[in-house]
């Protein structure tokens, strides 16, 4: 009996008789299952490593009794809490002890999800076909015709039908062992003891999730003497909830998790941080575009790479010791249709990261050009894909408009994915935001795991630059 506290200090502060007796009604099945659980823990020698999660329901106070780690969970969530414990300490044996309202009604999602996850925890499910704690209302497992406080004329079809949890859980791929047992006879109690022990053993060995449904007596709300309640469970409940093993698969131990890693080196590598200083190429902030804060908009459709190009500009700015921000348009609007990004490059700090009126617009298609062209500031610059958008109407005369066939050039290079790099090259030539080297440094950083693609990107960037320069030269003529 060592797994029970010598004195139930938590039961009304252990005063008087409560220090040694349970809060359960006379003849209640809970006490018996507590004894079986205690026995299993003792026999397996795991008392020091066990955490028992008690539910909401009559067994809410299971933690009064078990001299193990104890957590009391919110209604229905014991299995989710148990998983939280198991993940925190894979060495621990975690038992989720739940009644029918908790497990099969309010907590159904958590119950099924934990079972299907299959991580080794043990769920002990007390099915007594009625709500105990709240005073005899209908449970999800209440039998058809059974009278309860909320099915006063007997459960009928309008109340739905009793849910067979052991069968439901056994259907899932996650669990390794599912059995339904009962408490009404010496032989059944022995089977129950064996099942509970096996369920915990399987967890201890890291083999997987186990589920034991126990048909239990609630003499109080069945309004029967305990021996009548035993007979009732035997005669009525087992017809709907047949006893026996529902699933028992042999699985090799698999749940062995390493201790979390706290090595500086591994961490720095994982987050992609680098100690290598990036070379600076800018002599000064590009104040010819805006004295302190240059605002850009990049717009195209899904596959144009506008977001990547935006990221590269922000990275380039930060590499040069300026501030840079990038905000993508996100969500449903980013699926198909227009994909646009707001970018800022600031001398000290970006104050307004949105770009409702950009200094520079990089447009990958005609709708973007039409939508955002009108928002560009006076004296600003528009660079657009002239392979897609033709016949660009002159905007404000102070705005420089540069058409470069991003798509054609990228197609010519044989890789459409570099379209955005062509565009960045054009942007560089048209605005002189940063020197070419600054852009290319950012591109190389982004491709550090795909170095073979660097020459192609370099080529694309240069081609974009050349085309923009040619366009501008042509315009002057």
């Amino acid at each position, binding site marked *: *009996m*060592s797994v*029970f506290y*010598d*004195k139930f200090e*938590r039961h*009304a502060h252990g005063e008087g*008789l409560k220090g*040694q*007796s*349970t809060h359960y*009604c*006379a*003849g209640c099945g809970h*006490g018996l299952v507590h004894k079986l659980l205690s026995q299993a823990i003792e026999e397996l020698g795991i008392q020091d490593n066990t955490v028992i999660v008690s539910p909401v329901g009559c067994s809410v106070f299971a*933690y009064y009794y078990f*001299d193990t*780690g*104890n*957590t*009391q*969970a*919110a209604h229905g*969530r014991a299995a*989710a*809490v148990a*998983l*939280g414990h198991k*993940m*925190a*300490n894979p*060495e621990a044996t*975690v038992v989720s002890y739940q009644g029918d309202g908790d497990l099969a009604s309010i907590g159904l999602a*958590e119950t*099924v*999800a934990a079972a299907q*996850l299959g991580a080794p925890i043990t769920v002990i499910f007390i099915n007594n076909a009625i709500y105990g704690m709240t005073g005899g209302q209908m449970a999800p497992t209440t039998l058809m015709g059974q009278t309860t406080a909320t099915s006063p004329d007997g459960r009928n079809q309008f109340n739905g039908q009793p849910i067979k949890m052991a069968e439901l859980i056994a259907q899932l791929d996650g669990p390794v062992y599912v059995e339904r047992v009962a408490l009404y006879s*010496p032989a059944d109690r022995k089977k129950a003891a064996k099942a509970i022990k096996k369920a915990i053993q399987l967890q201890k060995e890291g083999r997987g999730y186990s589920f034991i449904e126990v048909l239990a007596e609630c*003499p109080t709300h069945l309004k029967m003497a305990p021996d009548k309640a035993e007979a009732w469970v035997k005669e009525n409940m087992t017809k709907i909830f047949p006893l026996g093993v529902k699933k028992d698969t042999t699985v090799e131990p698999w749940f062995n998790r390493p201790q*979390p*890693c706290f*090595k*500086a080196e591994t*961490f*720095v590598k*994982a987050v*992609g941080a*680098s*100690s290598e200083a990036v070379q600076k190429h800018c002599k000064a902030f590009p104040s010819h575009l805006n004295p302190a804060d240059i605002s850009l908009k990049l717009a195209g459709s899904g596959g144009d790479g506008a977001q990547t190009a935006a990221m590269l500009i922000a*990275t380039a700015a*930060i590499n040069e010791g300026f501030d840079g921000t*990038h*905000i993508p348009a*996100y*969500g449903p609007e980013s699926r198909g249709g227009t994909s646009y990004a707001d970018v800022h490059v600031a001398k000290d700090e*970006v*104050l*307004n*990261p*949105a770009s409702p009126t950009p200094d520079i617009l990089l447009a990958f298609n005609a709708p973007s050009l039409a939508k955002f062209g009108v928002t560009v500031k006076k004296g600003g610059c528009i660079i657009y894909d002239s392979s897609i958008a033709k016949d660009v109407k002159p905007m404000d005369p102070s705005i420089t408009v540069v058409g470069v066939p991003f798509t054609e050039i990228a197609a010519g290079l044989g890789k459409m994915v570099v379209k955005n790099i062509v565009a960045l090259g054009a942007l560089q030539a048209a605005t002189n935001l940063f020197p070419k080297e600054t852009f290319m440094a950012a591109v190389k950083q982004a491709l550090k795991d795909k170095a073979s693609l660097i020459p192609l990107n370099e080529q694309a960037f240069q081609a974009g630059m050349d085309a923009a320069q040619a366009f501008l030269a042509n315009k002057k003529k």
Partner: protein
Amino acid sequence: MPELKERPKPYLVPDYCKGCGRCVSVCVKGCIAFSDEINPVTGLVPVVLDLEKCTGCGLCIEACPEPYGLRALEQGEDFELQDPAKLFGEKPSAAPKPVEVPAKQIPLPKTEPLVIKGNYASAIGALLVGCRHVYGYPITPSTEGAELMAKLLPKLDGVFLQAVSEVATVNHMYGTGGAGLPTMTFTSSPGFSLMLEGVSYMVGAEVPGVFVNVMRGGPGLGNIAPEQADVKLACHGLGHGYSHCITLMPSTPQEMLDLTMLAFELSFKYRNPVIILADGYLGQMTGKVQLPDHMTEPGIPTWAVYGDLNHRKNLIASIQLLEQDLEKFNLYLHGKYESMQVEARAETFMADDAEILLVACNTPARAAKGAVQNLREQGIKAGLFRPVTIWPFPIEQLKAQLPRTKRIVMVEANASGQIENELRLALSKAGVTAIPPITHVRRCGGLLPQQTEVVDHVLSLAK
């Protein structure tokens, strides 16, 4: 004293018998019988044993639901002994007094700044303080946080578990936090609503954990653009009962990292969840983020239910059945909340001589900062007061500004002025009566107040 046989006979302290009779029917020898004598101590009717024919089969013991009901006599136990206090004694539980497993600081090499999204920055902040257990349910615009965790945690032998719902998420956190380890989640407004029951339980059971709520437009499904309409939830609606959490409102990707680290520190310091309210823009925004010079390997606190001998005697629970106990606990919580006042933080910008004080949090604070600069250029003495904690509200810091403040202008992204409500409540509680006129620039529905709107508003006041 009769000699103990190999198979011990049952023994019963009548005080611990509830008279259920489950033992009666199993004894084929008829040794156990119902009685009609009421036990004067319990008011129940215990069974009576006549063990003359007893074979020591043990079936009655197995049938008894009471842990200290029918028992087998153990070797050396005195059959005649009837006094339960002597029988079970005041034996202390064998579990030891838990000792703290201390945290360790691990130096990091100096690195170049990262260029990352706010959501990523927050995730990296959590990893830096040693969080290796992250649970979550995907929801825009917070999902990148969970995605990065799913990518990085396996490399750090940590756990990312995509939960079946936000309800499950917060309860996984309750388990891991209860085990004494740092844990967190990323969510956004509708998901945060779903987690609130669990937050209340965590407060009640004193379980630490960090919630990053990247706020979006509501009510209902609303939209996925930024809003600041969960301030009321974080400050006054964290589930049922008397629950409060320190609530931080970052305004840059760098602060997403810094404040996430701070959130964990505060969460463990006070054994209470901590909320980070970001906005959709900030979560998605990429910016410059510098890593600190160390990271932390967390220890295990003494109160944890870790599942080892050291912590065996512990309990994580929020139930206080006796009214007096719950009153005592709530007064204790009240004291704890009072002690959190020292964590109130605010940042100011050009506020030293400001006559017009803009007040803003999150991304709108950036627009407000831009507006301050713009207004200064036009000769208007504007300044920014940015609460970094919205709960507790940095009232002392605000009070220090008031003697010079002629007007307060609230800049926020919700329809009703939720940040303004916090400010007014804090002023009122602090007994400040000389309050300058308060006006506001508000946008909502996913739109943020713009710098030009703020500037125009302030200029219109001057007229």
